């Protein structure tokens, strides 16, 4: 067995698979997941068919597909934001509560492999859920409007989001001795990541420079959330209207921008009525769902989001690996001086 195989299939992974799949909880979780996702798909499709939810009457087949995909992929992220912390928040703290962690430390398995094994087994379950959802997502192709690459990008963003939430869960599980505290912290982090960062863009938008030649972009941190990238993938549009503030006090909160045939971008709406800020057409280099300016200028939203989330993953993994060992080789503080015998 080579190093990669050993890492992928360490004893922790095998044990976790065995334990997890022996209970009724896993099949039940999978069933509920599919029922919820399928139920939402059916509800959205019914609403569109019956002209409900204000979809209007002039929807084409491709609109059906796009709308259905948007709802499904966002709902899938929301479901995973609930499931993933539950899978990982007790990974290490649970071992502590069961008092099995010391027994692992005295074996030859390194602490990093413990973290890696826990992560891998949790993420395998997430991947299983994603695979299970493929038949539901494939219904989108019946209507069109979504290409295969969009689907792949969306699943990539979803998977990386689950990985980030999983690693944050493990980091909190390593930091906190109690699973309850780790779970609360993990859900808090999931909320901040998925919902908090887009809200940040609304509360603290980027100030638009009147002399700038490029379209404004929302604060980079907002792209950490999978919501904007997934919307961008689903609609193939960017969001220059979101998260930017105009010099005269206009505050753009909505209005996706669409690529014009001539290569420019038209951002509809966005400005506050009566403030004199028009929707504008620009001939800048920005096109499609790319970010127009800022740290990730020229990047697709999903690319920026994946990179940012992977940075968070690396930080969470490093933190877990530092905190977990019972005796740390790298010290941040000077050890106390030995007591003097009386």
């Amino acid at each position, binding site marked *: 067995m080579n190093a990669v195989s050993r890492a992928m299939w360490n*004893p*922790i992974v*095998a*044990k976790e698979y*065995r*334990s997890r799949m*022996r*209970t009724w909880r896993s099949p039940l979780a999978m069933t509920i997941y599919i029922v919820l996702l399928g139920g939402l798909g059916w509800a959205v499709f019914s609403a569109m068919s019956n002209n409900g939810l204000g979809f209007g009457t002039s929807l084409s087949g491709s609109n059906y597909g796009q709308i259905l995909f948007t709802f499904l992929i966002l709902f899938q992220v929301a479901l995973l934001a609930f499931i993933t912390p539950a899978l990982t928040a007790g990974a290490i703290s649970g071992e502590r509560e*069961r*008092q*099995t962690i*010391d*027994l*692992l*430390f*005295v*074996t*030859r*398995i390194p602490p990093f492999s413990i973290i890696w094994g826990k992560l891998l087994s949790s993420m395998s379950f997430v991947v299983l859920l994603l695979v299970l959802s493929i038949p539901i997502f494939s219904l989108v192709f019946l209507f069109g409007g979504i290409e295969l690459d969009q689907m792949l990008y969306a699943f990539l963003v979803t998977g990386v989001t689950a990985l980030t939430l999983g690693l944050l869960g493990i980091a909190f599980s390593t930091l906190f001795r109690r699973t309850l505290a780790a779970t609360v912290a993990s859900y808090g982090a999931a909320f901040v990541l998925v919902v908090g960062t887009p809200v940040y863009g609304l509360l603290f938008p980027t100030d638009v420079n009147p002399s700038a030649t490029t379209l404004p972009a929302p604060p980079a941190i907002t792209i950490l959330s999978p919501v904007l990238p997934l919307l961008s993938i689903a609609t193939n549009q960017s969001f220059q209207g979101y998260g930017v503030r105009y010099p005269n006090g206009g505050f753009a909160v909505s209005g996706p921008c669409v690529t014009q045939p001539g290569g420019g971008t038209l951002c509809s709406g966005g400005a506050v009525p009566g403030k004199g800020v028009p929707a504008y057409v620009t001939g800048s280099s920005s096109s499609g769902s790319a970010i127009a300016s800022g740290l990730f200028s020229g990047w697709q939203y999903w690319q920026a989001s994946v990179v940012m989330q992977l940075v968070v993953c690396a930080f969470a993994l490093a933190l877990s690996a530092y905190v977990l060992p*019972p*005796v740390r080789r790298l010290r941040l503080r000077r*050890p*106390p*001086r*030995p*007591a003097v*015998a*009386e």
Partner: protein
Amino acid sequence: MIAVEALTKTYGTRTALDHVSFEVPEREIFGFVGPNGAGKTTTLRILAALLEPTGGKAFIGGADVTKDRDKVHSRIGYMPDFFGVYDQLTVGEYLDFYAACYQLPKQRRQKIVDDLLALIGLSERKGQLVDTLSRGLKQRACLARALVHDPAVLLLDEPASGLDPRARVEMREILKELRGMGKTIIISSHILPELTELCTMIGIIDHGRMRATGPVAEVIARLTTGRRLRIKVRGPKDEAVAILAPLPAIQNVEVTDAQIEAEFKGDETVVSEILLALTSAGVQVTSFSEIEGGLEDAFLKATSEEVG
């Protein structure tokens, strides 16, 4: 095999271990005795390289517990004072999991697990979920887990805690068998009579300080000085006490509901003279025996005052 030199561990201002030193030669069973909070578990955790000492050194088979952790882990089998079992795993899978964690080859693991289960008498429970075992059987499974990589040293923290008398006897027999197989064992326990029978060496620790250490008989002899007689008489005890108290060899007389305990100084002649004094005065003696000085006395003595 095990050497501990001036081991010290402090938590803030609290000193858990204060320059603890002892040595355990190969193939010995070292009983580690002390009241709750004395520092037994802290010492064992340091020896298991799970805790870093504030000062001092400890070696397992020459490997420094603070520097050669991998070597130490390969040489020790650690059994803490809790079970540490997983639900949803059978006994066989539980042991196989730890064998895999010790990176034993897959082809060998099955045989190792079967041999261990035979050693601790759990072969017929191999397919049972480990979490559903009784306390005594769980303890045995945990001992098997500590043995899975065939370590030379066993660190057992309260292995008989909470076990019924039968399970204790079984555990004791297993430990004797392990000693016969060449293992060096450190065992912490509160059950002193059992340690007397099981251990070859003893260490008494209190408030983080090692009060006495050495071969069991030597420590007991060192710590217990006075001889005691247990006397049962028919009828009122006052008469017997009145005869015993003035005798020059008698140092102290205590009366309980069932018996009289008399502390004395002297040899066997003195013992016979005491008995003669009682019987010649017409006291009907029904039982007359000397109380053997034991580990319990030594422990009480050691933990009540400082002993060099």
